[in-house]
């Protein structure tokens, strides 16, 4: 007959509450990824288990659970339409956890709940692998472990603090082993990342068309776009860092898009000059194919280059697949351009005019053309026009109407870099100069050895074809707001704010100091994040191989790391157990040392003192095992007992003499030892 399950609640409430809180805490970062009603169901189930079942003792019936399963399955079908996919899978998991919470009423159930808590916490990392999230998940893991410890200590709420200290100590003790596993466990797939969410990506960042406001909308985003290091130590000045992202050929007023070109005709090594700048770029996943490189990527192969990418018309790079993971690649750029021939196809595209241009705009461009002898002069006139005609640079230029170009040039004169780039390129085309719009990022923040580029560094500029010179970068923004280019958007905005706020100039010094400190803290934190990305998350098969090469294992297959792993684990565990044994013993005084000498001597004769064994009992056992020296042994034992436990003042010399009186080694007496096993009295 099967034993019937208990119908009363038998678990202590504190750990039960603790594990429910742990599950909910693990769930918190997932809230936007799962069906909200599933979470509500879980909270309801936890509440019912904790406050209804715990009090009344009535566990929910089978019928209720079956109904809940049916409702949950129906809900999933209605919400997602399928069981496949991360979101619906997670929601199903949550429903099952809710049911488990509801029926938990034994130690075994409790352990299952704790394991589910761990699992849910780890699920957080599906969606982001930010360092902060890792720390949070670590905290949840400590908490769930503390709950387990608390449960096994009887489950009183007040024991939690001590339990969490124990849990922390336990996890810390496991840390060396985790590190060894991390370094040595064979990587069968690329890297430690398993991020596969599409929903978080593509909400911010580049887009594949340029329209008024598309860059300005990013200007306040602190999100990191990518980080770049310079392995050869050749770091250009920040104001010269134009990170090329994409080139737009087809323009219509303020709206630009890639255009019809397919063939990357310019991809020819040797047309670029200047010192090569090797960059290693750690690109945050953005759900697109854009890759970034300093103006201009040369297409030279590099040593660390493993990634595959294509050259697109306009000398920019594109990944061959959509980027959902941190993507690392190396690229070489050269600052000088020595192109001489513009392909017919490209020239046609670079001169194509918008469908409709207002007469005023056309007249403006033609007047420049007429007044200038060279193309260069036209460009200068255009820039001069922006400079003197009270154009202003603003994050919030407002929206433009039907004929945006005309309105921008002659009426409002307020814009962000995309307005200027788009307008400038159009005007150049009207003046007969082939031109195109480039988008990407400009500058960044230098943080030690690497540059961090954020979404707010997004920028748009233009390139114009000058005969004999090739494509020439022209940044109209530099004409409007030179400090935006020389010192970056953030400080430009700050100086604008300070200028409009003269009254508080006295306080601005401290405010500036604060800002500076905040900036430095931000950079330090970013550096930690960068190192984390670089060294932990990016630790893949290749890195592992080079790590092995560094410690002297060449051409490691998968067996060798495993063997090393086992060896390292063995060493670590034995070190740990040694340490645990040591740390349990209080420091010995002189009497203790003499007695330890005594026990050691007897241990060499085969009589080992059990940790719990008192001196007299041990003395008797040892005396029985070594009858030749029985009186001397018993003398040591009684002397020790007297000194250690007696009321008389302690004088170690007596014990020292007694121990010295023993022979240096004992003859093993074999058969008698076996009969003298240590046993506890059992009255």
């Amino acid at each position, binding site marked *: 007959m099967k034993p019937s399950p208990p119908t009363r609640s038998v678990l202590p409430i504190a750990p039960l509450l603790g594990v429910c809180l742990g599950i909910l805490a693990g769930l918190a970062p997932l809230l936007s990824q799962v069906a909200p009603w599933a979470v509500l169901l879980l909270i309801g189930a936890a509440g019912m288990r904790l406050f209804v079942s715990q009090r009344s003792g009535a566990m929910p019936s089978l019928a209720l659970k079956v109904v809940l399963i049916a409702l949950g399955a129906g809900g999933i079908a209605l919400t997602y339409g399928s069981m496949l996919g991360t979101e619906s899978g997670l929601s199903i998991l949550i429903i099952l956890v809710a049911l488990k919470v509801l029926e938990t009423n034994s130690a075994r159930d409790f352990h299952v709940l704790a394991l589910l808590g761990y699992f849910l916490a780890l699920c957080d990392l599906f969606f982001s692998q930010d360092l902060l999230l890792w720390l949070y998940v670590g905290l949840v893991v400590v908490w769930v472990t503390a709950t387990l410890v608390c449960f096994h*200590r*009887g*489950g009183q709420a007040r024991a939690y603090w001590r339990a969490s200290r124990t849990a922390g100590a336990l996890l810390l003790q496991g840390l060396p082993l985790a590190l060894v596993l991390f370094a040595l466990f064979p990587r069968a797939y690329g890297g430690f990342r398993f991020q596969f969410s599409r929903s978080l990506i593509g909400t911010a960042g580049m887009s594949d068309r340029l329209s008024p406001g598309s860059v300005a909308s990013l200007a306040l985003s602190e999100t990191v776009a990518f980080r770049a290091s310079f392995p050869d130590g050749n770091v250009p000045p920040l104001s010269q860092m134009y990170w090329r992202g994409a080139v737009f050929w087809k323009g219509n007023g303020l709206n630009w898009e890639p255009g019809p070109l397919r063939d990357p005709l310019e991809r020819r090594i040797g047309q670029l000059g200047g010192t090569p700048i090797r960059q290693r770029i750690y690109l945050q996943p953005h759900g697109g194919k854009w890759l970034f490189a300093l103006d201009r990527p040369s297409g030279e192969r590099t040593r660390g280059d493993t990634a595959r990418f294509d050259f697109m018309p306009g000398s920019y790079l594109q990944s061959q697949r959509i980027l959902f993971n941190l993507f690392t690649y190396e690229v070489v750029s050269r600052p000088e351009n020595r192109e001489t021939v513009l392909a017919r196809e490209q020239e046609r595209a670079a001169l194509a005019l918008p469908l409709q241009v207002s007469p005023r705009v056309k007249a403006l461009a033609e007047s420049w053309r007429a007044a200038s002898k060279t193309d260069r002069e036209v460009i200068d006139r255009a820039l001069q026009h922006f400079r003197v005609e009270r154009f202003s640079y603003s994050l919030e230029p407002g929206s433009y109407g039907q004929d945006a170009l005309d309105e921008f040039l002659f009426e409002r004169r307020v814009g962000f870099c995309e307005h200027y780039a788009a307008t400038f390129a159009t005007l150049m085309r009207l003046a007969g100069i082939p031109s195109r719009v480039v988008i990407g990022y400009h500058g960044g923040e230098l943080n030690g050895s690497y540059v961090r580029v954020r979404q707010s560094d997004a920028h748009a500029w233009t390139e114009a074809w000058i005969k004999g010179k090739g494509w020439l970068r022209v940044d109209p923004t530099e004409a409007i707001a030179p400090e935006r280019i020389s010192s970056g958007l953030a400080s430009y905005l700050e100086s604008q704010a300070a200028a409009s706020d003269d009254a508080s100039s006295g306080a601005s010094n401290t405010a500036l100091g604060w800002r500076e400190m905040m900036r430095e803290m931000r950079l330090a934190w970013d550096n930690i994040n960068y190192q984390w990305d670089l060294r932990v998350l990016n630790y893949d098969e290749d890195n592992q191989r080079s790590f092995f090469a560094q410690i002297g294992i060449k051409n490691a297959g998968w067996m060798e790391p495993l063997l090393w792993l086992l060896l390292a684990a063995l060493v670590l565990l034995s070190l740990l157990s040694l340490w645990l044994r040591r740390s*349990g*013993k*209080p420091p010995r005084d002189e009497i*203790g040392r003499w007695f330890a000498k005594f026990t050691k001597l007897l241990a060499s004769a085969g009589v080992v003192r059990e*940790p*719990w*064994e*008192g*001196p*007299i*009992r041990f003395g008797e056992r040892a005396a029985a095992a070594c009858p030749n020296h029985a009186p001397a042994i018993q003398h040591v034992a009684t002397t020790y*007992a*007297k000194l*250690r*436990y*007696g*009321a008389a003042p302690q004088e170690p010399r007596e014990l020292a003499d007694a121990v010295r009186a023993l022979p240096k080694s004992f003859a093993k007496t074999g058969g008698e030892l076996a009969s003298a096993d240590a046993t*506890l*009295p*059992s*009255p």
Partner: protein
Amino acid sequence: MQSRIEALVAQVSEIIVGKEDAIRLAVACLLARGHLLIEDVPGVGKTTLSHALARSLGLNFRRIQFTSDLLPADILGNSIFDREQQRFVFHAGPIFSQVVLIDEVNRATPKTQSALLEAMEENHVTIDGASHVLPVPFFVMATQNPQHQVGTFPLPESQLDRFLMRLELGVPSRSAERTMLLGLERRDLVRDLKPVLEGEALREIQTAVRGVHTSAALLDYLQDVLEGSRRRHRTGLSPRAGLALLRASQAWAFMQRRDMVLPEDLQAVGVAVMAHRLGEDFETTAEGGRALAQSLLRETAVA
């Protein structure tokens, strides 16, 4: 003094054959001024042991058989109106004697049990507002059947704590049983026992036991044991249990003719003192309590 204790042990051992360890523990319990609980199945000599002990101690002795209809007044006594003196006169119950043998303590209702245990703790009883002091020495020996037998009211944890020790006698060995089968009727033997330890001597010994030295090293060990129990079990040993362990160890050390307590002494009495205090831990039985106490001693290192 110790030789008289040896004589006492020897005399009782003649009645209860082959149970010298248990008898020594019972005597240690008495010397430590604690009360004794003897638990075992019927017929192994629980009652005979307590009889023999009481007789050999030369103390006045009463026996109370606990039943489910026993009332507190039946053991404590009550006030009865005396016609001649025209007032209430207190008639002391059987508890007013130096050695009280409670047979089958877990057969009485909790109400009666608690009256008894209160008297044991306070050393006096209060009836109708008047306080009556119990005699000195006051030693309660209670026997009980294992809890799973029909018609018993198990003593709650808090009340088990009042007994310094709990002993199990167990079935005698084959040779001991043979001796018993061949010998005279046990009850007759008990009746003929002569006291070997007078009341005054007992009191002296009890005072001397308190004077046995307990060193810092021993107290460290004792506290390690207590902490170990608290770390491992839901409700570890209480401070009262710690004190009980100390007193019992002192008595044992005294019986070993020592003027200091050694870890060995604590280990000798440890299971008897701790088992019933740990036995109520979840899903453990009396056997479980013994196992817990034993493993506790085994896992606490002597420095």
